[in-house]
């Protein structure tokens, strides 16, 4: 599904990713762990298409297409979703409006009819219920004045509505209390199936107790230095990153 080969990326002439490789097959959950500044979030942003990041070498293929050739909105429509580490506040744009626009943009991309207001409202209500999200959150401006936990839950809510093929969760667990963490994890787990993949970027092993990965990768200084099964996460928790 996703193949990242020898990816080199720089920001403001500083190289952040230095030959990153990762292959994700359909249905797999990959966790990328690593210390601050190792390039985890850069990878997430590059996959979503952030322009400030310059790819200097390497390639990224998503379902047979050259991902780097696509605009951010095309990547989203193709099925990539990034749950932001720091979701952006957009005053004056209602959450529900953003979501309907996004969903309908994706449907239009695939030559499907747009959802009517009432159909969308029904869909949104269903998803909200499972995530324990208050209905007034839909009417509020996107992330504006949301608490940290609300922002992260809102990202997962958007993911549930947009039903991506590949979801990249960038430190979605940071700043969450245990209850919120469980809700987020349930939101992810309920979507796991043989056709959908996840890249879960995290600092802590804690999240992986709830979202159990198939593979764990350790990222240090812009590349993956070790890969393994979920047991690797426990090893990291014990020994820290110092050994890498």
């Amino acid at each position, binding site marked *: 599904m996703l193949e990242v080969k020898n990816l080199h990326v720089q920001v403001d002439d500083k190289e952040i990713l230095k030959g990153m490789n990762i292959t994700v097959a359909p249905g797999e959950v990959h966790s990328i762990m690593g210390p601050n500044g190792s390039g985890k979030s850069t990878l997430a942003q590059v996959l*979503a*298409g*952030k*322009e400030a990041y310059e790819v200097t070498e390497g390639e990224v293929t998503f379902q047979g297409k050259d991902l780097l050739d696509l*605009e*951010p*909105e095309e*990547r*989203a*429509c193709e099925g990539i*979703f*990034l749950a*932001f580490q720091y*979701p*952006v*506040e*957009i*005053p*004056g*744009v209602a959450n529900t*409006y*953003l*979501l309907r*626009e*996004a*969903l309908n*943009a*994706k449907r239009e*991309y695939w030559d499907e009819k747009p959802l009517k207001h009432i159909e969308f409202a029904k869909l949104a209500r269903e998803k909200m219920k499972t995530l324990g999200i208050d209905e007034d959150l839909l009417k509020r*401006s*996107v992330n504006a004045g949301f608490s940290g936990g609300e922002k992260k839950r809102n990202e997962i809510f*958007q993911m549930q509505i*947009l039903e991506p093929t590949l979801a990249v969760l960038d430190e979605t667990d940071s700043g969450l209390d245990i209850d919120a963490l469980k809700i987020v994890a349930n939101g992810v787990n309920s979507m796991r199936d043989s056709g959908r993949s996840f890249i879960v970027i995290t600092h802590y092993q804690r999240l992986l107790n709830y979202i159990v990965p198939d593979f764990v990768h350790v990222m240090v200084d812009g590349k993956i230095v070790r890969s393994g099964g979920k047991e690797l996460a426990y090893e990291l928790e014990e020994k820290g990153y110092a050994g890498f």
Partner: protein
Amino acid sequence: MAIVFDGTRESYVEGLSEFLNSGQKDAPEWVTTLRREAISGFAKLGFPTLSDEEWRFTNLEALRRGSFSIAENGISGVSKKSVDSYGFSGLDCLRLVFVNGRFASSLSDTKDAGEGILVKSLSEAISEQSDLVKGHLARYADYEKDAFISLNTSYFEDGVFVYVPDGTVLEKPVHVLHVSTDEDRPLFINPRNLIVIGQSSVAKVIEHYVSASQSVYFSNVVTEVVCGENANLEHYRLEFESQKAFNFSTLRVNQQKNSNIASHSILCGGAIVRNNVHPVLAGEGCNSDIYGLFISEGRQHMDNFMRVEHASPHCDSRQFYNGVLDGRSKGVFHGRILVHEGAEKTDAKQTNRNLLLSDTAQIDTKPQLEIYNDDVKCTHGATIGQMDEEALFYLRSRGISMRQAKIIMLRAFTGETLEHMSIDPVREVLEGVVMKWFEKRLQNGKGR
């Protein structure tokens, strides 16, 4: 012979006697006296220059070089159909139409205003309700201090007169449509409006300036508002003049005890535009909400000049102005809050946010607080920026196209001011106009 003003101070001063002899022979003496006093005000003042502190950012050289004349023809070239096209779909309102400053009764509908309410042309009111008009006209807008008010007071021909007696609700909004047409020579048009709202009364007035042509003219508007005790007025000024026009407007409001006003200024047309909003919160416990949105392109120049005067205790005022500037256009926001010595417990807030869509657009924003009382709360804030890249990326990462993302952001930005309008059909029309403007910009591949 047409009365022609060649741009010099003398021509405007000397033109008055001919103006009085031609169209104003039947005017009451007090009006003629007023006009004479006003022109002597202009004789002393002349047009402001860049060295005037209040005109630092707005160069009037082009106006001073321009030659303008008073319209000779009556109303012509404006059909009912074209007037209807400027209406607000779904809005049940009273309508007064003025063409090049003159009342077009055949295009107007002022029936069923309500018991005791007067909604008519000012020139009619001057002959029919002379004393009532005399008690208010030119009592607030100071023709000895402001050159444009002096000129308007000297040369005004018509405008709307709204009078709502005490304890009365004017149910229908009043749509005052000023249309300018293509004439042989550039016109000098002086609309003059007077709105008097009695104690505990309510009214909504929409002043709307449009052009049926893209010609040059000099439109100089003065509106005086008296808001009685506990009265409530919502006022709109929608400026969609020709892209080559000079438009100067003053809204001067006198607020009595516990009165409320909401003022909305939308500036879109005009080459050089100056919009003065000057409420005086004269009685205790008043509230003034002043909203504005200006959008400019090309070489348009839009100067928003606020003077919010707190003259009594326990009054609140809010200024909320947003600007969107493209091309080589220039904007000015001059927000002055003046708190008099006796105006304790004043709560005044001012916000001006500007969005620049091009590298060559420019905005000068200048808050100015002048406070003579210690027990007040006054805040101001201004921002200038481009469209938020992070927000655009966030929207695009959800599958929304760049173009649509920009439209969403622009709509949110302009919505901050438009959302305060209580007349939905007006707000909807304006949202449509604003969207069209954006789409045109984005089609040109501009706007970031």
